[in-house]
């Protein structure tokens, strides 16, 4: 075995040429599966309708244009409204989740009283039940409270299912804050609340930001079943449900639907690109080794 002095990689990370080819081929197949719908969706958004509805199938657009990105505003008159609704619902949901989760995560991270482990288990169990199972009583509850066909009908149930992972994530983060800080504050005569508010919260701020982002993404990604069931006013629909109405039609204007979809997912893609490192850390925190 020849020792190449320039190569500083550990031996186990060195590959023969055919291994490199195999790895790239595998990654290509894997990523093609992950990205094919986006590639196809993007190409469709560039194709004129006449080419879309013609056989044989052509992968690349011929005289493609961004025309659909203009015309969709006419075909989907409430498009801007849907995006606004999506953002509004996700933002309000994130704020409520943070207000509930930040104190709870701190309690789980710092105190270990009888019954708390059980409560934590209870929170984790919540994430096992989807909203779909609870739709009937939730529907009746929303009707009784007069919340049907309001933003709250879509926000309130969604929040409950965002709580468990947010608590878990923030608890993991807060457990890394040294308890000496609490003790020092106690010695200085600070109250429990003062310590939480003035000592812990500022230190936990980066963790709270990560939780806020992952919660927002979760809220943005999962707007469907509650919005579909509890709201029938087009003015309040979030983007997925708003577009679903067009998806179901007999003559779907596919290029415009795809253009609209791309504009709708753009914020999520931007977030992935810039915050990827925090996201991966955040989303898998506490998962492998607690």
């Amino acid at each position: 075995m020849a020792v190449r002095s320039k190569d500083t990689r550990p031996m186990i990370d060195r590959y023969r040429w055919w291994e490199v080819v195999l790895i790239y081929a595998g990654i290509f197949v894997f990523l093609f599966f992950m990205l094919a719908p986006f590639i196809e969706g993007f190409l469709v958004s560039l194709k004129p309708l006449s080419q879309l509805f013609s056989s044989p199938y052509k992968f690349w657009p011929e005289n493609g244009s961004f025309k659909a990105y203009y015309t969709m505003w006419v075909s989907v008159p409430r498009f801007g409204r849907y995006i606004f609704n999506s953002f509004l619902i996700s933002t309000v949901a994130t704020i409520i989740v943070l207000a509930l989760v930040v104190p709870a995560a701190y309690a789980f991270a710092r105190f270990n009283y009888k019954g708390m482990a059980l409560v934590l288990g209870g929170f984790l169990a919540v994430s096992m039940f989807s909203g779909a199972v609870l739709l009937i009583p939730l529907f009746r509850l929303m009707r009784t409270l007069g919340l049907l066909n309001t933003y709250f009908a879509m926000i309130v149930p969604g929040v409950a299912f965002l709580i468990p992972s947010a608590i878990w994530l923030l608890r993991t983060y807060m457990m890394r804050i040294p308890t000496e800080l609490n003790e020092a504050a106690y010695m200085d005569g600070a109250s429990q609340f003062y310590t939480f508010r003035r000592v812990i919260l500022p230190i936990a701020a980066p963790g709270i930001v990560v939780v806020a982002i992952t919660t927002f993404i979760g809220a943005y990604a999962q707007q469907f079943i509650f919005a579909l069931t509890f709201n029938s006013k087009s003015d309040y629909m979030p983007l997925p449900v708003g577009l679903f109405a067009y998806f179901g039609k007999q003559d779907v204007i596919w290029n415009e639907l795809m253009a609209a979809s791309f504009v709708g997912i753009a914020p999520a893609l931007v977030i992935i690109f810039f915050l990827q490192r925090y996201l991966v850390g955040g989303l898998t925190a506490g998962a492998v080794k607690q």
Partner: protein
Amino acid sequence: MIKSRSSLIFAWVLLAPAIIYVLVIVAWPLVETFRLSFTDASLSRTTNYVGDKNYTKIFNNTFLTVILRTFAWTFFSVLLKMIIGTFGAVLLNSAVPGRHLFRILTMPPWIVPMAIGIFMWGWMYNGQFGMISGLLQRMGIVDGPVAFLAYGSSAFWATIVTDVWIGVPMVTIYFLAAIQSIPKDLYEAAWTDGASRWMRFRRITLPLMAPAIITMSMLSLIATFNSFDIIWILTQGGPSGSTTTMIIDTYQTAIGSKKYGEGAARAVVICIFLSLFCIAYFRVTRRLAALEKA
């Protein structure tokens, strides 16, 4: 840690809002679902208790088929997610240029609004003009257009593939983290002993990521069992019920036909299965944690 009566109260005050919220939005509806399952609740104002009538009504061959279909759908979906996730994680763990970019590119199906990703699959499955049918025809694998969502068996698999597509990124990233937490010296030692790459994967990577695979497959089982959006958007349970899983079936009964009582009975059956999965999950993770300490 300072223990006092005031900090005990403080801890529970911090927890109270979240606990109350979850009690009202999740726990109470669960109990209420159970109660409603013994009633004839519908759109009408009056609701009467009807005993176990809903349960005797739903337990027939059609419902058993739905249960079996749900298990088959879930099983294949989870199995594929685990296999593809392992494959992806091992590939993304290789020390080749570009791997950071590849990791980012894995994430979109997970992060973008689920429904929108599903719309794109809806187009890909289109028989006349869709990509999959088009490419298969070009490669000469099929003769004419294949409308994947129009036939029972292909719709069944098409919805599974879309579910796998949405689930794989999370599984991959999770497995990747598990692989990266395996000490490098193990590989170096094995390499020194002349173990091939395959042997190292088989004897080091796979056994050491087994806890992650077990944990993930159970979490994935629960999530997949609850899957609603994909089937509802692509097929709404059709054609002729071939993609009707228990969740879809419950939704059709309760929200579609407004039979709340009967729908609740169907939901209770789902809850029983979910509770069993949940108990199994907690037991397995506890066992794994104990193993890790030992």
